[in-house]
């Protein structure tokens, strides 16, 4: 139904998301947020809630794209709308509120699978966040600097004021063990 140019633009956007291009995210926001804002505010939501919903939808899309093999079967707009709609429905349902919008996209697509994956992942995320919060400083920063930023033990040693790299190494090991323990205990609950 949609023209090839629109499809082309959607593909470009997806490529932009995959490469983590900030401009693409901005454009995504500019092009599709008003639609979501309208949908949410028309259905007993606030603009802040719309923002959260849209953010979550972009994350779903991002994860999906990162996962690879994401093939758009519909317009990106339709996909985002469907995701946002499902998310908002769920939130309303959780709060015992009603959704009055009867407007269904004719080609509303099933996003249930993506959302199930997303939900699972989200759970993992919050477990990790919780574990990191419990871990506290300076462990959290040490772990982050070493594993995420890929800094060397020497840099960490200097930054955190350890007398030698061995001390820092010991400290990092203890932190990691503690984090693993926190994370896996929470995970097995």
């Amino acid at each position, binding site marked *: 139904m949609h023209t090839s140019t629109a499809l082309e633009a959607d593909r470009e956007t997806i490529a932009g998301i995959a490469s983590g291009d900030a401009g693409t995210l901005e454009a995504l926001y*500019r092009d599709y947020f008003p639609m979501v804002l309208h949908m949410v505010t028309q259905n007993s939501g606030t603009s802040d809630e719309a923002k959260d919903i849209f953010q979550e939808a972009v994350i779903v899309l991002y994860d999906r794209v990162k996962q690879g093999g994401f093939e758009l079967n519909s317009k990106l707009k339709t996909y985002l709308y469907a995701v946002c709609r499902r998310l908002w429905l769920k939130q309303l349902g959780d709060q015992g509120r009603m959704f009055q919008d009867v407007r269904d996209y004719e080609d509303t697509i099933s996003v249930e699978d993506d959302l199930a994956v997303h939900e699972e992942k989200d759970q993992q995320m919050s477990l990790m966040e919780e574990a990191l919060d419990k871990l506290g400083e300076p462990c959290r920063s040490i772990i982050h600097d070493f594993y995420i930023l890929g800094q060397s033990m020497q840099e960490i040693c200097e930054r955190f004021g350890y007398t030698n790299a061995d001390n820092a190494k010991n400290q990092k090991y203890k932190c990691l063990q503690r984090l693993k323990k926190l994370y896996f205990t929470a995970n097995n609950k």
Partner: protein
Amino acid sequence: MNSMSEQEFIFLADKYLRKELDATERTAFEAYCTAHPDKATQLTTHQLFLEQLQVHADRKALKQELTAIADKYAAGGPLEAKQTTIITTLWNRFKINSLVAASVAIIAVFSTLWLSGYYKTIETATSNYSALRRDMNTVKKNVNAQNAVINSINSGQRRGDESKSHFGATGFIVSTNGYVVTNYHVIKDADSVHLQNSKGDAFRAEVIYIDPANDLALLHIGDSAFKPLKSMPYTFKAAVSDVGEDVFTVGFPRDDMVYGQGYLSSQTGYAGDTTAYQISIPVNPGNSGGPVLDSRGNVIGIISGKQKGLDGASFAIKSEALLKSIEAIPQDSLTDKLVMGKKNTLQGLARTEQVKRIQDYVYMVKVF
């Protein structure tokens, strides 16, 4: 390397994953893992855990970026500017100015209209109804003022200020102990009200009740010079009179009493007002408040006004409205009891005799 502590293993694993091991170390580590399956599992777990950590960090960074974009968007940053057209931008910029300009224009227009008397003209133009109080003419006012000046020169002292507006109208007795009814429009801005009978005796009167809806006012003569009158010659007719009824009135369109005669021409008043009659009697300013009587001497109404530019269309408030209005007066607030005449002594008399009998009960109302 046969055995190593967990700490050493993790250290090596990190190095291995970060590809910081050289070729020999690498082979040795891999061989160690193959030799110790439990260590191999540990490596996989460690790797997965680190991946999870990475995903978490990525997600956090993405969220931060999105929040930043959202804030930028909410703050009306470049995103919004791209979307809004030039018209809206201009409107936003000059909204306040144009609102101020609009309000100034509105105020200017309406105050000019008001100052130029436009609304007064509208009011007069839209109403053809003319209340019949008599504005004591300017000539007389001037003469009075002149006399006052002369008097004050002669006597060397100033008299009361005579320059205030001054109206004349008619009123008539409804209770012999000094209750007189007239129109509300006659006394509405009154400083003081005086009643003068046909003999020329004047009494000071007080307004004790007003009924602006029916254009009625009740006065009471509080003057000590006033002597209660003999029983009233007329009665009040509560029922509606028929069209064609022969009616007459007496009033004070000038300083002497004037008789007028005509007929009841409609059972509704100005613009279909059901509390009034239309009567065909030539009336003039000053006739307001005069009684309208039928040939048997019943008061059927009170002259209140006429239609401008239409001959013989005068209006009289129905006596039914008068009676209702009087009933509504709280009796406790009256000093003397209001007793309306019950006996009609005019029936069957010639008109000249009827007028003679009622003339003592009709007063000229002078309003200062």
